[in-house]
């Protein structure tokens, strides 16, 4: 046995070169080379041109809207997603399985369809809009609509990251806390919440990252007024439509850098989460 192990079971299986080679080739062709085209295109711009493209007032307004609305939507998702995950894991009620399956709807429903149906609901003549409009509340065709669409899009992330962690938390810890005289709220805030916090933060970051890049659902409901309800991805599209390829690329690079930063942040969060669950068990 020892002899077998020392030769290393590593390369006993065939296909390492083939599968890794193919994976790297495919990854390069589909993802890496096209993405590098974006970077090289930016180098054709001089620094002042680049700065001009990514910091004009209209573009700045779109960053504010995109990041602001994404932050609000991800925060709402963190709170309500935790609530939904909690209810799905801890309680039993009629129709629970259906609700559990429905949570994934925003992943399965094409974003354009989501955008149109949310607009139909919230517009002045829609099922919800018609009750709100007399009171002067407008949820479609302004930044409110952007936030609502982004809440829809990000809904599953927090639920699906928190749910498995909540399932795995040990009841014994809660029993111990109760035996030691903790109230239910103390048990939640000091025992349960710290255990699920990394997952909650990961879900929040994922919902935020998705919201920043979202396009399909938002453009239908936003109204797309320059300076008011125009998101950054739409800026890229409208620059493209005016054949301003360099300008579109510059804004896209800014978005790409944001995505990279978030991806690294999420990876770090998950490493933290793994260390914590590893330390617990």
């Amino acid at each position: 046995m020892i002899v077998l192990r020392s030769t290393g079971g590593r390369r006993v299986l065939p296909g390492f070169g083939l599968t890794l080679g193919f994976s790297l080739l495919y990854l390069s062709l589909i993802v890496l080379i096209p993405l590098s085209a974006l970077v090289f295109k930016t180098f054709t711009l001089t620094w002042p041109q680049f700065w001009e493209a990514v910091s004009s007032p209209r573009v700045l307004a779109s960053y504010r809207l995109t990041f602001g609305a994404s932050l609000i939507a991800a925060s709402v998702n963190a709170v309500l997603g935790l609530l939904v995950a909690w209810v799905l894991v801890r309680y039993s009620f009629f129709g629970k399985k259906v609700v559990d399956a429905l949570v994934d709807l925003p992943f399965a429903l094409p974003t354009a369809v989501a955008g149109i149906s949310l607009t139909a609901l919230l517009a002045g003549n829609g099922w919800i809009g018609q009750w709100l409009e007399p009171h002067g509340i407008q949820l479609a065709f302004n930044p409110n609509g952007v936030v609502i669409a982004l809440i829809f899009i990000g809904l599953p992330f927090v639920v699906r990251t928190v749910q498995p962690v909540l399932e795995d938390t040990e009841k014994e810890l809660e029993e111990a806390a109760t035996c030691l005289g903790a109230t239910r709220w103390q048990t939640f805030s000091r025992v349960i919440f710290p255990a699920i916090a990394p997952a909650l933060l990961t879900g929040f970051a994922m919902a935020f990252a998705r919201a920043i890049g979202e396009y399909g659902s938002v453009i239908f409901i936003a109204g797309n007024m320059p300076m008011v309800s125009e998101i950054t991805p739409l800026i890229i599209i409208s620059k493209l439509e005016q054949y301003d390829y360099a300008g579109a690329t510059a804004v896209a690079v800014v978005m790409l850098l944001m995505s990279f930063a978030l991806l690294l942040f999420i990876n770090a969060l998950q490493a933290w989460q793994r260390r914590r669950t590893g330390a617990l068990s």
Partner: protein
Amino acid sequence: MSGATALQARVSRVQAGTTEPAWVRWVLITLALSFIGLFLVLPLAAVFTEALRKGFDAYWQAFQEPDAWAAIRLTLLTALVAVPLNLVFGVAAAWAIAKFDFPGKAFLITMVDLPFSVSPVVAGLIYVLLFGAQGWLGPWLQAHDVKIIFAVPGIVLATVFVTFPFIARELIPLMQAQGADEEQAAQVLGASGWQTFWKVTLPNIRWGLLYGVILCNARAMGEFGAVSVVSGHIRGQTNTMPLHVEILYNEYQSVASMLALLALVTLVIKSIVEWRHARELAASAEVPPERPSTSTASDSVWGAPA
């Protein structure tokens, strides 16, 4: 006797201490269900109501329209190319990553996730920069009369990009958890590489694989942003179903309802796969299971950059 009842009282108090009072439970359930109802059920209901507003006849008529047909065909074609490509990649990448150790593995996993965190609009843009009239390869393509942007190949490429990680993402953790022991046993017993894959690995990963394919397919058929950038919106030629929905924005939305129906079918199949997978795990777990059996399939999040 009195000691026993006192003990019982304490046990029930501890049990009560690990859940909430009934009224809190009901308030929380009601809040969660209202949120789900308002944000998920109502929009879904609105899609179907809008589509059927003018009755079934008008609904069917909208499908008879040649442009709608062309959109449906193009969407099916796109998914038919994109899903198998990413399936082959997913299996190959998961095999290399899960069964072998090599430097830079963690970095490779991050790169696989990259398309998830890139905005769909940026995904479309990069192909325009490569293959568009003013792009790197644009002049060469024009000279050879090959059209990629504003044509079907561009749509397929953009779709492949946005659905790139789905199957790999599903298989990598699954195959990592399973390890390489069974495959090594098969090798020792004289199986060839292909035999090992088809008879040992594939049966072990089939539910995860199916799960990934469902997610990949749903996204491939529903992608809007990336496809919108590269399509050129030529009616009857380069409009997929989601783009057709956009054009008909203010008309009755038969195609939208069809896509919504597709989403529901996806959810149903996904639930069945999860349920079958959980049952199989429970059945095979003669040794006490380490964790609740459903978690393998539902652990991962669609589109999750993990």
